[in-house]
């Protein structure tokens, strides 16, 4: 154990780390493989009633009748809630907003009025004694509508686009133009002008949204909820239903995937709370898979891009204009175009982001929101420009490498993208790639190789963490964050063990309970940066406290050593050079007459350091496709992705995050598409059978490389987050590979075989 590590509060020394940087199995693994892990709809309590949601069949109009009375007459039906009998909730829009919603919008309120906002919105909740009865009765609900015309077609309504008028956390408005993109474009030697489109996509985590709302004898609610933010849900329920925080506890120990769909409170929570409080009865409400298509989604986007390079192949002009759908009542905002002013050096840049209001549910962040969309289009266009300039597309990217964040005119906190290009291209075998499309073959298949850059912002939020060391030497660390499959339980346990010196097996991390100390929602890849940095701080404080207490012990077990002379390891304070001089944490507590030591720390983002830098993670993605020339079938046979994401704390879970995100990128490139019937204003393929996501046989070789990247600016741990960066640039690498294989440039996702024939 090096001396460095024992000096409190210093930057992390990677080599000296005992846990951080070592592949570590998930601490929640055994619970997940045995079925012991309980998800929201799995907390079974006596006397539970079941609510089944009825969804609207039309997009706009007014409900003229619902046969609720008939349904309530069915034996076993306890209640049918509709807009006609729903108890009143808070009046003001402000009371319905949550941490994530846009600041000025009117969030959707289920069962609020006869007026409809979008197709498949909830219009009734049938509560029955059993699930089967509620489902049966719900199937008999008849809703009559007075229909009105709707608009759901982004392309047809592009003329109605307007700049965002609202704001929300995580959204960065497009930077002001720099230089003169238009005249630079006119003068340039090489030019590309193209339009790219991407359909709406639905998160579809494997676990459907569910709420088990347990009504206590005292009227208190214990809500087992699928969510990415228990405290966001708690605050929402309290504000909408006028309840006090002490009477509402939201619990979510395991979450069957989120990908952004659980950042905001979902409507089955609202319905479960409404039913439970109206009936004074515990109620479970789950969405069906079909209903998983009836709320948040990645917005459909149309993007117009103009790029130009001078005769030396240097980028001279970037114009990127994005149109995205949003609902009528809220502006969903994600950062789409800014990346195009950031990825490469370019003096003349014009970036515009506009919204089109449609009769759809409000979109919501979906894995790498904005970046997945914007960078697909931009990196496709960059590839087109490289071909105009007859330059190898990797070489083109290297040539135009950005050494600083030109949007902000600031240096990067760290940027090892060059190393990503080097290592991934070598692994992939890019060298010697023939430039011309249709020049690689394997048997009767056309083979193509494509490359793309990826980027995501390295964010940090305020977070609080509590640590309790008990007399038995066990440490419990907690914060109201979430583990949506990201490995939060494991990485926080590792960080706590690392900085407290308590052995891993004696550390437990608690999350997913609104009664724990404050955590932001889990999203944006900021959880390790935010909560993890707070875990580090609180454990460092714990060590300092233990050291102080040890100094007061009779017999001076550390022989008067200074803080810099001791090591904290395996539940002991030891004199580093004379390890026989040691004392266990349990002994320290006992000597101090304490049955526990409790500390609580709030970690603020490193604002001062961060303010002077652009903080991002980067990636280089290489993809190989094989295309059957006769049938047009496409397989993504190989992907190599190199990630510069700061310090990698648990390489095992980090690799899984990136693998999964690459599968998402392949899915975005090849499969996902919410098919809207604009006549009906409705998503028609709302099931796992018809909304395609990859199955095991669709996924072939994927290789992940982590490039070392040292960063003391982003946060105290130097970690940039893993959830989003892996997907960014995958769809463009695949699209660029398809071009290389076939000579066809597919600019609308997904790349299905009909677009190649």
């Amino acid at each position, binding site marked *: 154990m090096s001396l460095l590590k024992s000096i409190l509060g210093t930057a992390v020394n990677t080599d000296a780390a005992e846990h951080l940087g070592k592949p570590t199995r998930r601490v929640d*693994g055994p619970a*997940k493989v045995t079925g012991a892990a309980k998800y929201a709809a799995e907390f079974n309590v006596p006397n539970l009633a079941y609510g089944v949601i009825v969804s609207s069949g039309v997009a706009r109009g007014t409900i003229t009748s619902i046969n609720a009375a*008939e*349904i309530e007459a*069915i034996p076993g039906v306890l209640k049918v809630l509709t807009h006609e009998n729903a108890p009143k909730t808070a009046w003001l829009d402000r009371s319905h907003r949550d941490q994530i919603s846009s600041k000025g919008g009117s969030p959707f309120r289920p069962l609020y009025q006869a007026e409809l906002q979008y197709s498949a919105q909830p219009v009734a909740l049938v509560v029955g004694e059993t699930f089967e009865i509620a489902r049966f009765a719900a199937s008999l609900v008849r809703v009559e509508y007075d229909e009105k015309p709707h608009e759901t077609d982004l392309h047809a309504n592009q003329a109605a686009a307007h700049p965002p008028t609202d704001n929300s956390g995580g959204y960065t408005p497009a930077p002001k133009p720099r230089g003169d993109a238009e005249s630079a474009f006119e003068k340039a030697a090489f030019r590309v002008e193209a339009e790219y489109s991407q359909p709406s996509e639905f998160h579809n985590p*494997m676990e459907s949204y569910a709420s088990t709302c347990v009504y206590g004898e005292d009227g208190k609610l214990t809500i087992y909820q699928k969510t990415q933010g228990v405290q966001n849900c708690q605050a929402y329920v309290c504000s909408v239903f006028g309840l006090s925080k002490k009477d509402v506890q939201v619990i979510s120990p395991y979450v069957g995937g989120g990908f952004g769909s659980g950042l905001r409170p979902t409507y089955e929570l609202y319905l479960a709370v409404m039913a439970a409080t109206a009936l004074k009865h515990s109620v479970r409400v789950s969405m069906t898979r079909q209903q998983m298509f009836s709320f948040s989604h990645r917005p459909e986007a149309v993007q117009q891009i103009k790029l130009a390079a001078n005769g030396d192949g240097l980028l001279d002009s970037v114009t990127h204009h994005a149109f995205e759908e949003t609902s009528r009542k809220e502006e969903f905002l994600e950062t789409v175009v800014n990346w195009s002013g950031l990825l490469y050096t370019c003096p003349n840049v014009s970036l515009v982001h506009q919204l089109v209001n449609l009769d759809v549910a409000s979109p919501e962040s979906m894995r790498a929101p904005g970046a997945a969309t914007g960078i697909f289009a931009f990196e496709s266009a960059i590839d087109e420009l490289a071909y105009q300039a007859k330059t190898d597309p990797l070489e083109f990217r290297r040539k135009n490498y950005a050494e600083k964040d030109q949007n902000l005119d600031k240096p990067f906190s760290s940027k090892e993208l060059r190393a990503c290009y080097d290592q991934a291209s070598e692994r992939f075998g890019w060298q010697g790639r023939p430039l011309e499309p249709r020049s690689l073959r394997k048997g009767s298949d056309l083979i193509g190789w494509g490359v793309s850059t990826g980027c995501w912002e390295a964010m940090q939020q305020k977070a609080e963490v509590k640590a309790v060391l008990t007399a038995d030497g066990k440490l419990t660390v907690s914060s109201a964050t979430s583990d949506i499959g990201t490995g939060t339980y494991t990485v926080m346990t590792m960080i706590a063990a690392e900085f407290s010196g308590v052995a891993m097996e004696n550390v437990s991390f608690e999350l997913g309970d609104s009664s724990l100390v404050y955590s932001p929602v889990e999203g944006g890849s900021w959880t390790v940066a935010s909560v993890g940095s707070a875990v580090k701080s609180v454990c460092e404080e714990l060590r300092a406290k233990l050291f102080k207490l040890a100094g007061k012990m009779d017999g001076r077990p550390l022989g008067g050593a200074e803080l810099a002379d001791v090591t904290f390891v395996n539940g002991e304070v030891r004199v580093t050079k004379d390890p026989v001089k040691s004392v266990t944490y349990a002994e320290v507590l006992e000597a101090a007459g304490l049955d526990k030591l409790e500390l609580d720390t709030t970690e603020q983002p490193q604002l001062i350091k961060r303010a002077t830098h652009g903080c991002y993670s980067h990636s280089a993605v290489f993809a190989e496709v094989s295309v059957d020339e006769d049938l047009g079938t496409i397989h993504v046979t190989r992907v190599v992705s190199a990630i510069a994401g700061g310090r990698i704390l648990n390489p095992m879970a980090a690799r899984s*995050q990136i693998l*999964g995100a690459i599968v998402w990128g392949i899915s975005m490139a090849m499969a996902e598409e919410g098919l809207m019937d604009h006549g009906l204003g409705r998503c028609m393929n709302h099931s*796992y059978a018809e909304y395609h996501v990859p199955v*095991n046989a669709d996924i072939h070789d994927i290789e992940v490389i982590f490039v070392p990247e040292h960063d003391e600016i982003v946060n105290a741990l130097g970690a940039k987050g893993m959830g989003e960066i892996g997907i960014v640039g995958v769809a463009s690498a695949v699209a660029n590979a398809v071009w290389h294989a076939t000579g066809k440039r597919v600019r609308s996702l997904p790349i299905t075989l009909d677009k190649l024939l």
Partner: protein
Amino acid sequence: MNLATANASPPATQFVTLTINGQQRHLEVAPWTTLLDLLREYLDLTGTKKGCDHGQCGACTVLLDSKRVNSCLVLAVAKDGSQVTTIEGLAAPGSELHPMQQAFVDCDAFQCGYCTPGQICSAVGMIREGHAETADDIRELMSGNLCRCGAYPNIVAAIEKAMDATRARLSV
């Protein structure tokens, strides 16, 4: 008044006997109760997951008379006398993990864990079928089990790792 509604009353319950994880159970359920809902809502065996309720995702996979099935597509009353093994019954209670469960942990073959019980039961069922030799076979024969987290490469690695030990267990 809607005719369907006027006559709507839930059908009478029926009795069914199932051996679930080695334990015989006599149950009274509605004829339309699926095996999946029976496990989750009536027996608190929530390890078996509901992903779609339509036979499209495989999250609900259990072993029914040793064969892998989507339990959301099975009506409980239709399987009177059958043996059911769920994720909770794969390894004897309190004993070590089944080799497939251990391999899933060792290979990090999941993230959110929601598809995992179905993947593991499906993998055991697949090995019993005896057609999976190569990684490509596994990919093909495991394609009835979606993983939205995209853990597929690690799932294949875990199954390869546990293949022999699982086979050995099946042959005893």
